[in-house]
């Protein structure tokens, strides 16, 4: 199954089919989520309208983790079965994931200033997400540090797998330590403890972010494949 999708030509065919669907689904759910989040949902009785920042902050943080998991999974596939396509997927995921992480950190700071009275605290959740951002940056830097792309891909893949230890720390940091950041209220045992009027726009926004991620990832991989093809053609022309 995996090996079927490792064929670049087949991958491109599927990507060409998926991209319009994921892009339009993301647009529709994003528009609905934004409308419900900004206008159609009640303000929080304690936080007032600042609670609406959550509709961007939480999906961005989820996607920051999901993107890293995708990157690590693709890296593992690349190391084990040596599919070059998996390398390209991992490489294309990194800048998107780094951006999601930055969005989560920035929106968190914007929310923290009115709610906690501070832009930043050194609690376990915030610190571990900051480490996630550094891991993404280090991963990207490692890709650019070698002249030989295969060597760069291997090194980056090993780093991505090492960084996986950070994911459970981020997820459970709010349970293991007494953090200022509130514990999970959607993905928890016993069902979400968030009101449906707020949960619906949140989930719609999460779907929009996921579709955006998939669309962008496929476009980036397509670009990487084209760049690789171009390099091969140029090399062939230089020789011939």
């Amino acid at each position, binding site marked *: 199954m995996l090996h079927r999708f490792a064929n670049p030509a087949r991958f491109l065919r599927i990507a060409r089919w998926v991209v319009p669907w994921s892009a339009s689904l993301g647009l529709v759910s994003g528009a609905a989520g934004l409308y419900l989040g900004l206008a159609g949902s009640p303000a929080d009785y304690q936080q007032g309208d600042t609670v609406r920042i959550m509709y961007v902050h939480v999906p961005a943080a989820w996607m920051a983790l999901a993107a890293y998991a995708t990157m690590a999974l693709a890296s593992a596939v690349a190391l084990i079965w040596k599919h070059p396509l998996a390398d390209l997927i991992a490489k294309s995921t990194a800048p998107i994931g780094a951006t999601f992480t930055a969005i989560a950190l920035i929106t968190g700071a914007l929310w923290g200033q009115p709610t906690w009275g501070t832009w930043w605290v050194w609690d376990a959740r915030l*610190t571990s997400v900051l480490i996630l951002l*550094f891991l993404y940056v*280090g991963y990207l830097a*490692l890709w650019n540090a*070698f002249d030989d792309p295969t*060597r760069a891909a*291997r*090194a980056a893949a*090993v780093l991505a797998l090492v960084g996986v*230890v950070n994911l459970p720390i981020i997820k459970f940091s709010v349970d293991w330590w007494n953090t200022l950041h509130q514990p999970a209220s959607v993905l928890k045992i016993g069902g979400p403890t968030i009101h449906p009027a707020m949960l619906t726009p949140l989930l719609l926004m999460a779907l929009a972010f996921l579709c955006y991620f998939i669309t962008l990832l496929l476009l980036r991989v397509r670009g990487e494949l084209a760049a690789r093809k171009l390099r091969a053609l140029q090399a062939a022309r230089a020789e011939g």
Partner: protein
Amino acid sequence: MNGFWLVVGRDLALARRQGGESGLALLFFVLGTVLFPLGIGPETQMLARAGAGLLWIMALLAVLLSLERLFQTDFEDGSLDLLIMAPLAASLTVLAKCLAHWLATGLPMVVTAPLLAIMLAMDPAGLGALTLAMLLATPTLSLIGAIGAALTVGARRGGVLLTLLVLPLYIPVLIFGAGAVEASVAGPGAKGHFMILGALLLMAATLAPPAAAAALRHALE
């Protein structure tokens, strides 16, 4: 197991005969720490408050400084190829090199740290905790650093890159290492911190050598 000790002995002999290499890290640790009282002022209260954190940060940076040479010199003269092809499993070779690296750079720092702590006016109650925490944590620094050193073998600007890769992974060690001193000075005792530092060491000792060995094998392909 014979091969393991041969690699340890070889690296220690190299460290001793090349002179300076590992002593340099210790010197950096001492000199860097001495700069702080001159920079932030010699008030004993402030130094006592900041001392543990300063020592830990300097230890992290000093280990980082010495890591670049961990595999790079062997890579350049070709002996890394032989070490990896030798009958000893590559991850054990990495473990042996980490042990030698710790004996040459980490252990001297553990011995020096209490001395520097006294110069920084640290509460005597924290000295034992500092030494024990450093003893538990400096091998972890060598092991985690080995992953970064293996990944950057043959890279352009390897040293800067190594900093970027390794420092984020050092953060837990820094938090619990400095926390151990804090906790034993403040009263509640640092048993929990020591246990976490020990757990980090065990995790690093089992996971870091295979990861670094995989990175080395790819570097040599």
